[in-house]
């Protein structure tokens, strides 16, 4: 049996912590709890977890601040768990380095699938090829195959697909996509992005891979 994955849960609600503890243990995690932001930071530093589950409404430090402090020294995946469901808050959390955002109340199944996506990504980030359903990306040759047939993509479509595929299952904010593909000057040109996404969707129609739009936040690639 491999070493168990570790998770740190930072939440001030005792009941939720207990429940998350149970639910995460059920899917094979070793869980450590923290009640405050400060505690969460030291617990993360001490335990070196594989994932951090972070609530935004903490009694001592604001959750976003905890996230920023974490990002100063580590790239451990962080999933934000919050009652705040406004798009602006989600974008702020994702732009500050959160890997995903789940609003409370949530279903355990959904949480599990998000966590899986994160770990899959961690494993495939360095791999030279990536397979999602019928889709195969060859990063070395910059080629894409759909059911074994080469798929013709423009350079921008390819970069977009690679970015989404490497983060499959995870929402990428519009800002991040624009920055990665067009550079930091083009933040206002979201309309281009829409056009490319719709082209890409058309080309990927036949395979099960979906590019889902999270309104006002960004895009998420969903594996079949």
């Amino acid at each position, binding site marked *: 049996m491999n070493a168990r994955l570790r998770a740190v849960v930072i939440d001030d*609600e005792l*009941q*939720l912590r207990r429940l998350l503890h*149970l639910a995460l243990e059920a899917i094979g995690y070793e869980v450590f709890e923290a009640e405050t932001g400060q505690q969460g930071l030291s617990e993360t530093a001490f335990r070196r977890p594989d994932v951090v589950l972070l609530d935004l409404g903490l009694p001592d430090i604001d959750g976003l601040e905890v996230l920023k402090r974490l990002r100063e020294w580590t790239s451990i995946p962080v999933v934000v768990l919050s*009652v705040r469901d406004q798009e602006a808050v989600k974008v702020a959390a994702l732009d500050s380095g959160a890997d995903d955002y789940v609003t409370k109340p*949530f*279903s*355990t199944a959904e949480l599990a699938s998000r966590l899986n996506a994160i770990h899959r990504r961690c494993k495939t980030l360095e791999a030279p090829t990536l397979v999602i359903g019928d889709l195969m990306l060859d990063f070395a040759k910059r080629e894409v195959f759909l059911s074994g047939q080469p798929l013709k993509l423009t350079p921008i479509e390819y970069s977009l697909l690679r970015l989404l595929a490497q983060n499959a299952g995870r929402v990428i904010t519009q800002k991040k996509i624009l920055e990665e593909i067009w550079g930091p000057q083009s933040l206002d040109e979201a309309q281009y992005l829409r056009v490319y996404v719709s082209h890409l969707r058309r080309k990927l129609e036949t395979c099960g891979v979906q590019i889902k739009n999270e309104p006002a936040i960004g895009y998420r690639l969903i594996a079949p």
Partner: protein
Amino acid sequence: MNTEEDDRPDPDAILAGLRREESQRKAGKLFIFLGMCPGVGKTYAMLQAALQRQQEGLKVLVGIVETHKRPETAALVESLDILPRTKLQHRGVELEEFDLDGALNRRPDLLLLDELAHTNAPGSRHAKRYQDALELLDAGIDVYTTVNVQHIESQVDIVQQITGVSIQETVPDSILDRAHEIQLIDLGVEKLLDRMAEGKVYMGERAGTAVKNFFKEGNLTALREMALRFTAEHVDRDLEDIRRAKRVSSPWKTSARLLVGVSPSPYAESLIRWTRRAAARLGCPWLVVWVETSHSLSPADNERLTRSLGLARKLGAEVVSTTGENVAAALIQIARERNVTQIVVGKPEKRAFFRRSRADKLIDVSGEIDVCVVRPQITSAAVKSAPSPSPFRSGTDTLVAEYSGAAILTFVLVALGRGAAPYIGYVSVGLVFLLVITLASLRFRRGPVMTLAVLCALSWNFFFIEPQFTFVIGKLEDIIMFGMFFIVAFSMGQLTTRLREREQAERRRQKVTAALLRVTQSAALSAEPKNGLSEALRTINELLHAETALVARISDHSLPGVAHGASTFTPSPKEWGVINWSYQNKQAGGRFTDTLPQSAATWFPLQTSTAVMGVLGVKLLSSATMDFGTRQAIEAFALQLALVLEKEHFIQAINHVEFLAHSERLQRALLDSVSHELKTPLAVIQVSLEALADLKNPYVDEIQTASRRLQRVVNNLLQMTRIESSAVQPVREWCVLGDVVHQACEAVGDPLSKHPLTTSIPPDLPAVKLDAGLFIQSLANILHNAAIYSPDGTPIEIFAALDRGKILTLRIADKGPGLPEDAEEQVFQKFYRGPGSPTGGTGLGLSIARALIRSLGGDVVARNGVKGGAEFTITLPVETLPP
């Protein structure tokens, strides 16, 4: 390629044309019936035209029409609606006048106003009738009026040259430029003379020989030619406008710009009129420039200059004043800065052989700019009128004292000289006299110094030069001595007075500058703005020997009914008319102006680059006129005060915004904590239930259903609260409508899957800019509503369209039972639940949908479809991407 460039119409010209059209569309139209002289039938023609308009169904009102007891005219007037004249009391005499307020209250479509050049009776709102006409036009009322060509300001001096009659009542050309149409009423000279002979021409109450001389055949022919030419020029200009707009290349470069340099001389008015005529002919802008040198102006000069510049403003010139010792260089500098193509100067009257004239100097340095030397004429109006002292100058009483001082000084000198002469000799006495004259010129003004010089010279001759006690001088050297004494005394007086005048002018300028500085400092540094303003007003009072009142606008851009607390006089109820007028028209009004000159004070708008912050009233206490310098100083103060008020206004605005931001932060924090408290237990229940789902216990399913319902209610309630506390700020971005609709359907989820859904979006629909999150939520609520209120299996249809390229409409139609009778509005009310609603709803879905769409600037309405079922229509103004 080049030719294409040239063919393109000048965008500025088109814009100017459009702007003029736009301001004219809102404002009323001015129709002018122009004639060469009284008696050609202008009034009759105007009445006929008005009758025709009345038959077309317009509301026509006769404001004022003089029939001069002509039966044909009177008959025409009777068939029109007549506005009673208002009666004014002036020094015990009752005067009848046009009732401007009555006309404004009646709001006719068209108003007849005879004799545009008429001067209103004292006590009327405006000095001149044409100002009444302007106010009517601004109120959106069309005006028909009549004018004779000799009353047009720019033509006055020509008429005077031709006829020798001086014209008092004039109409500025700018009002003729505003005319929508100028109709020339022409009549042959012989026919007119015939009519005169029949007594059909009204020649004023006292038809004296002067008036009769006016109606000579030669004069009339000349006047007729002027009227024809004037109308032709106007038609020409209209044609020019059309040509420019229609992409026809213009026959001349329209970038011409004229500049006329004026001095306080009586010729200035004539020069200004000449330039106006030239500018009108060229259709170009023109500047009037006054260069202030250190040479100080006499009160008469000041008066003339003020009037000349006033005339220039009235004729539509841009007036620029600058300072400089070299007038020619200053004129050239302004000309270069403003891209002037031609400078107009007056031809010098006499040529001094040793000095080059200003025109010569100007020509030397003008370079590529044309210089036009014009022979000006003195108009009668320019010469008359007595100057009055400016508040900066001392009064006449000190002058009398100086003259008597000169006499006494002479007396004392002679007495002392008589005693000293035997010891020091008469030559030394003369030198002492000279010394005293020099010293006196440091204190006295020119007149008294001259008097002293003459008295001293004569008494020296009389009492000291041999033979004594006669004016006879015996020796040749004494004659030379006397002559030199006289010349030295005289030039000494001249030089020192000129020096002193210069110093006085400088001191006056310094006083104004210092006062301005004080105003700025006191206003900028005082913590309490009111104190700063009081101090500023006190400074102005001291400098100008005046009283001041300030009316600052309040936050809704209107004036309060009371003057600012810092004011040193309280405006009388009568003054408020001119205060409001000045504020609204952004022009000075009241005393010394053409608008309500009967007022006690002159009112200046406090104008900054963006807004009028209020009005400053100045009541000069010791002066019967307001000269150019005083006016300039007050205008400078007004600008400073305006800036102070504007700063205060900005500070208030910032405080208000900060307050709002603070209360918004509080509200957000409250909302966040409430939603945290409600949602956390829900999350706990949700997670626990999922863990229990394996038990297959029916009670668990019940709890599950109840918990989901509770979640929906909490979400809806929180969302509603957020919308109502306007914590929802739309963030618009480009969206493809198909995506948005698709996501809304997904968000509804289960209930919608029981209905066949058709979506029809025009394929050419461009990307639209909207807040996708809010829009999807709102659309999802409507779709959810349609899904649960219509039986399973019935279709739901979505139709999208873009109206006029900027209004997005989205129609959601179901085939359910439709809305209850008269519930089209009620369904959007909070907590409204239709009869037969399935359990589990909150009655908030549709009201949230509407509130969200409204926060985006659109609306949602509901009605029953023609073929049954409910139909919801979203209309939303959107930006679209050009395809």
